[in-house]
């Protein structure tokens, strides 16, 4: 979608029918810039774009987020005039845009309008009520006709779905918040929504429902014992699905609690009374993480050693066999090829061991007898050689097994030491926690109590999660048993058997889709992470010392060159750049190619990053609309970088007396 122009009538500070505001851009000049002070109508224009697209859905958002009804946006002057004349009046916004759909690029416009009736009470207070509302969506055909298109979610979902709009139409505060601790849920939602993971999730749920439905039908058409098994299977399947939902809910709640704890920790860290203790605690936590990692490495090494050392449990036959071979070797019973040499000596001397002389040629009876004997021994000599080898291998095996046992003992001592250290670290952390909890400062106490409350809830959830996961394992096992049973019984009842097959297919498809869902989610996370890293480097020149990550639990994370968490240490500007980098990554991953509308992108940025961000902003999307505050955001640094890429630059003027906004385009 690319915005073309917007027409506003009696909306907020825009009085009467305003001239169209041109928003179109091109590839060389992708920016439209509005410059206006606080209260000049920048955010109203932002709201107008949103309202025109999403109508009543956006009105609900306004009520929830800003506690404002749409009629509160009616222009004050227009209302007062209409009230005096006892006339009805219109409030409307029309947005013209292009969309590259299945039929190529087409031009559309969408109009939201309200017909309003002012009412005066006895005290002279004016209120207003909605008499009529209209929303029109029209396509302007290549022939110039305006064809009405039904205003449906389907069309909006194609151009810019409501649930992802907030990642393309957003304000400065939002940019500031994304990289703050405690926002992993929002970051995760953003990724899931822009890559349409919700569609896959819905498909999974639909298939699970289908499996249940066929299961119930199979139960209905089954008779006798099969009927009972079918009912049991259906109930177990429903129980399993509910368990899955419950487990997923618990995980979400845990993530939310983790976010809240992070937020509280960030606040606690900033309080001067707790700073020293928090720093000590962070250090101990770091040591604890390292300790646990070391234990894991050592335990894996122990597992490796154990796989050899446990052979010592059966070393008696190994020693017995080795000793037997040793004895046979000492006696000269193996290897036989010594005897072969011996035969050769007899042939050379032409005298048998018994003293009988013979002629070492074929035909001599003694020679022939000795040769026959030698041939039979030759066949066995290869085996004898292998037995000699086995003797050496057995000797060596015993050495290796004993060595592994010694290594295992050493490593076990190492683990005991690490476990002692772990206990000590945990004890020290607990001590700090209780010290923090006892601090007399009220703020600290309140925050600490909140933290403790959440930690306790998290512990409860961990226990609940373990129970539910165990239940899930059991129910999967039971399902399999019931499935085997119903299959066996179902073979005898054709109708029920056919329903099984459908139910099983739906269940298998849901399971496969579930796995795909997890894989896809993880791949999307990784892609967004890679792009965020790339974008962050573009935004912050000094970012080379930092490594950005989007963790597996969807927290935006920054590590310094020592691998320590550095998000808290980022300046506000750097932190905002991280959010912008993430938003840009999301926009690139979405492939929906929507415009970016950003309200006050520089408002909280350090001046030091203005240059880098203003150089980057024109390259973020094919069309970017910026609302900027003069001097603060539109200044000597940003203006040269932005103006050369701007198709339109508007200055906003606000008449305090009339409370009206007017625009002039800067050429």
């Amino acid at each position: 979608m690319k915005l073309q122009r917007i027409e506003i009538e009696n909306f907020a500070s825009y009085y009467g029918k305003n001239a169209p505001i041109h928003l179109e851009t091109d590839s060389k000049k992708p920016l439209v810039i509005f410059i206006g002070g606080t209260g000049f109508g920048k955010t109203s224009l932002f709201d107008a774009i949103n309202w025109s697209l999403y109508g009543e859905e956006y009105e609900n958002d306004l009520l929830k987020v800003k506690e404002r009804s749409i009629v509160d946006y009616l222009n004050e002057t227009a209302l007062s005039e209409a009230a005096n004349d006892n006339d009805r009046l219109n409030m409307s916004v029309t947005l013209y845009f292009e969309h590259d759909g299945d039929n190529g690029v087409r031009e559309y416009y969408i109009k939201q309008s309200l017909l309003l009736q002012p009412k005066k009470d006895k005290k002279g207070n004016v209120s207003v009520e909605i008499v009529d509302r209209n929303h029109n969506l029209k396509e302007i055909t290549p022939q110039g006709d305006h064809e009405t298109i039904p205003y449906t979610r389907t069309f909006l979902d194609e151009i810019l779905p409501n649930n992802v709009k907030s990642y393309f139409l957003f304000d400065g505060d939002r940019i500031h918040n994304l990289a703050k601790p405690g926002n992993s849920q929002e970051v995760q939602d953003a990724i899931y929504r822009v890559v349409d993971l919700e569609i896959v999730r819905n498909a999974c749920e639909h298939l699970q429902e289908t499996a249940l439905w066929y299961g119930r039908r199979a139960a209905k058409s089954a008779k006798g014992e099969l009927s009972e098994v079918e009912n049991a299977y259906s109930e177990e399947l429903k129980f399993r699905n509910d368990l899955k939902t419950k487990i997923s809910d618990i995980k979400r709640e845990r993530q939310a609690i983790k976010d809240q704890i992070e937020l509280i920790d960030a606040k606690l860290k900033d309080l001067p009374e707790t700073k020293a203790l928090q720093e000590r605690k962070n250090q101990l936590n770091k040591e604890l993480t390292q300790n646990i990692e070391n234990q894991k490495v050592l335990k894996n090494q122990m597992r490796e050693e154990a796989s050899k050392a446990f052979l010592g449990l059966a070393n008696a036959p190994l020693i017995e066999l080795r000793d037997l071979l040793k004895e046979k070797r000492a006696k000269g019973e193996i290897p036989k090829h010594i005897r072969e040499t011996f035969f050769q000596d007899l042939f050379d001397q032409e005298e048998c061991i018994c003293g009988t002389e013979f002629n070492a040629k074929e035909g001599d009876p003694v020679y022939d007898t000795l040769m026959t004997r030698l041939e039979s021994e030759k066949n066995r000599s290869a085996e004898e050689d292998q037995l000699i080898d086995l003797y050496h291998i057995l000797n060596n095996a015993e050495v290796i097994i004993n060595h592994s046992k010694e290594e295992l003992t050493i490593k076990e001592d190492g683990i005991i030491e690490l476990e002692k250290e772990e206990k000590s670290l945990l004890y020290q952390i607990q001590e700090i926690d209780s010290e923090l909890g006892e601090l007399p400062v009220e703020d600290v106490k309140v925050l600490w109590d909140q933290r403790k409350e959440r930690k306790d809830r998290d512990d409860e959830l961990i226990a609940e999660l373990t129970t539910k996961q165990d239940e899930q394992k059991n129910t999967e096992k039971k399902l399999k048993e019931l499935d085997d049973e119903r299959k066996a019984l179902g073979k005898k009842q054709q109708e029920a058997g056919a329903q099984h097959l459908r139910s099983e297919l739906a269940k298998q498809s849901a399971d496969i889709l579930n796995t795909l869902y997890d894989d896809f989610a993880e791949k999307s996370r990784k892609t967004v992470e890679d792009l965020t890293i790339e974008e962050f480097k573009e935004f912050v020149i000094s970012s080379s010392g930092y490594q950005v990550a989007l963790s597996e639990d969807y927290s935006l994370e920054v590590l310094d060159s020592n691998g320590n968490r550095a998000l808290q240490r980022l300046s506000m500007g750097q932190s905002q750049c991280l959010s912008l980098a993430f938003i840009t990554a999301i926009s690139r991953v979405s492939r929906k190619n929507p415009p970016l509308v950003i309200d006050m992108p520089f408002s909280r940025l350090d001046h030091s990053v203005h240059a880098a961000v203003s150089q980057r902003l024109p390259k973020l999307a094919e069309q970017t609309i910026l609302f900027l505050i003069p001097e603060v955001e539109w200044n000597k640094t940003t203006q040269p970088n932005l103006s050369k890429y701007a198709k339109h630059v508007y200055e906003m003027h606000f008449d305090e007396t009339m409370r009206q906004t007017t625009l002039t385009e800067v050429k």
Partner: protein
Amino acid sequence: MKNLRVYIDKDKHETYEKLVKRGSENPDHFPFQTMKDLFMLSACLGYKYDAYEEIGSSKDIFSSDVFDEKVDIPMIISLAFAKEKTLMNLLNGRKVLDVAQGYANGGIGYVVEEIINNPGKPLNNLVEMIID
């Protein structure tokens, strides 16, 4: 002893699946990285407790190529010697493997009993059993 299939009793397969986990996660609860490791310990315990038990319905789980030539193969041959008390057939891979399979089949129950069912983490129980 190359390219031979190693078999276990079908009924025991679930136990193998439950106790073996590849990778480095959670070694405390999965003391065996491979089926081969669990097979070898089962065979050793089968010998230790004189629990030789022929396989009923067989299921092949891995190839003999994964046995360590320096320790596993000599142990398997030693177990065959312990059972047969003769040097005959010790170099016949299939025959010695069949004996090891019998011991492993009888020994897997002891693995479950001593390592899994005993209180404590399975890896600790295994190490204690080896070192004691």
